[in-house]
């Protein structure tokens, strides 16, 4: 309803096939610690199409977060190329809005509304007169209209993450990057946030790249899942997850799919215990 103008024009199958929104080609990412240079991902390639709910799934150390930072432009690949809508990614930018795991991603000196307006103010993306309305609509969208004038420290963890999502969506980014956004939440809140994210997607049809280490979360949220193996991160599989929903989480197909991913991550012999 309110954010209807965000809706992407629905493209034909053929168009989508030709132009992926985000293309990652043979990307090797390294990061430096005090002592050593670590290769986080090694020659990783995949394409994200518009409206994909694209999941990067893997255990810790598989470079999924590093990969997301690479897409966000915080890291430059030592090899390969990341491009968004045909343009090479060279640095951070507001066309790729990040939602982090940490609650402190909200600016404590801004109210909820102020936080959502902050990137608009700083990038001047929309006309000044629209800022407040756009921010308010996004805040309403995540069900926090009543808290628009509260400061973040008065909110619960789930509400903070909702604000972060609203802040990202209000910018109408080409792509939404989420780095384990629900990992610090309790199980019940987490489950509710997953449902809400899917509802939002259903409403606005944004393109999502979502990092998680939870197989269950990956299957429920994702339309497409990239399974990464660790040390260094490489793609083990790219799976279609569209048939699997929260509602059929108990079904035989869902369980089999879950076991399959489990097997890819931990080796076939451990399946029974996973």
């Amino acid at each position, binding site marked *: 309803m309110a954010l209807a103008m965000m809706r992407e024009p629905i493209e034909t199958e053929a168009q989508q096939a030709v132009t992926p929104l985000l293309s990652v080609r043979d990307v090797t990412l390294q990061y430096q610690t005090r002592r050593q240079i670590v290769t986080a991902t090694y020659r990783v390639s995949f394409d994200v199409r518009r409206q994909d709910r694209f999941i990067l799934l893997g255990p810790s150390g598989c470079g999924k977060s590093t990969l997301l930072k690479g897409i966000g432009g915080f890291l430059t690949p030592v090899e390969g190329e990341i491009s968004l809508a045909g343009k090479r990614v060279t640095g*951070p930018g507001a066309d790729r809005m990040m939602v982090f795991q940490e609650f402190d*991603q909200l600016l404590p*000196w801004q109210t909820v509304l102020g936080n959502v307006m902050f*990137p608009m103010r*700083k990038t001047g993306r929309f006309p000044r007169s629209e800022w407040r309305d756009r921010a308010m609509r996004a805040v309403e969208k995540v069900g926090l209209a009543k808290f628009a004038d509260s400061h973040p*420290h008065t909110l619960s963890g789930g509400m903070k993450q909702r604000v972060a999502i609203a802040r990202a969506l209000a910018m109408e980014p080409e792509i939404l990057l989420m780095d384990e956004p629900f990992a610090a939440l309790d199980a019940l809140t987490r489950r509710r946030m997953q449902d809400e994210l899917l509802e939002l997607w259903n409403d606005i049809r944004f393109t999502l790249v979502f990092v998680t280490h939870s197989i269950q979360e990956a299957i429920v949220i994702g339309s497409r899942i990239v399974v990464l193996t660790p040390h260094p991160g490489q793609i083990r599989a790219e799976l279609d997850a569209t048939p699997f929903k929260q509602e059929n989480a108990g079904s035989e197909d869902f369980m089999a799919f879950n076991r399959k991913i489990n097997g890819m991550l931990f080796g076939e012999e451990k399946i*029974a215990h996973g």
Partner: protein
Amino acid sequence: MADAVHATRGRARFKELPGRPSIEHTTLDAAAIGEIVRDVGLWQRAMAHTPLRRGLVLIALGILWEVYARFADNPLMFPSLSDTLVAWTTDISSGVLLSAVGNSVRVLLIGYGTAVLLAAVLTTLAISTRIGTDLLATLTAMFNPLPAIAILPLALLWFGLGLESLIFVIVHSVLWAVSLNAFTGFLSVSQTQRMVGRNYGLGGLRMVLSILIPAAFPSILAGLKIGWAFAWRTLIAAELVFGVSGSSAGLGWYIFQNRNALETAHVFAGLFTVIVIGLIVEGVVFRSIEAATIRRWGMQN
């Protein structure tokens, strides 16, 4: 899950405790329980009021002073609170004290403001370039331990007896404390918040203004408070040394003069004024800044 026995990798089989039957209770209606919320008493509410508690502490200290001074009965060495207050009101109404305060505060604000501006430049430089970091680290390590009074003779040599010398030593005493605190604050800003800023394309000065300064505000404010106290100490001390010239008749000069005249009650009145101004600045100025910023933002409890 129904199975009580799970297997764990490479270790003994995990044995679950024997199950016990589930129990369900019915909860009482809230109305049946009666009083759930109760207002706290007047005394507790009064005691939760910080200014009131602090005021009580002040009054207690005042009473202690008065009692001891009367007991000691030596107005030359230790005048009582009432004597001090009399001297204070006399000098306030005659305007002597007010003009001294005016002079001191003016010098203080000029020196303090200059120092804060310099600190802003220095820390911005330090946060954006590596050589700036080294510069700040070296300068603060060198000059922070150096008492302002120690460079006063040098200041007198360079700038003569006057405003410039006073401002120079105040800047020296404030600059390093404020810079060091602000820089430490900048360094402790969370990586996530920096990335949030960079995500929106912020960098350089815009990053400092929109993200780093508010995020580091608790440290910056602590630095400003320390700097304020340092400025006062330095100013009063410098004016005491200056005393003889009397070119800028500030509070230090007022104290010095009255000590020479053995008007101890007036010396106390001068000190009392410094304390009162300190209390006002701490209790009103800094407290309201805190309330409007870091406390409102939940960065301080």
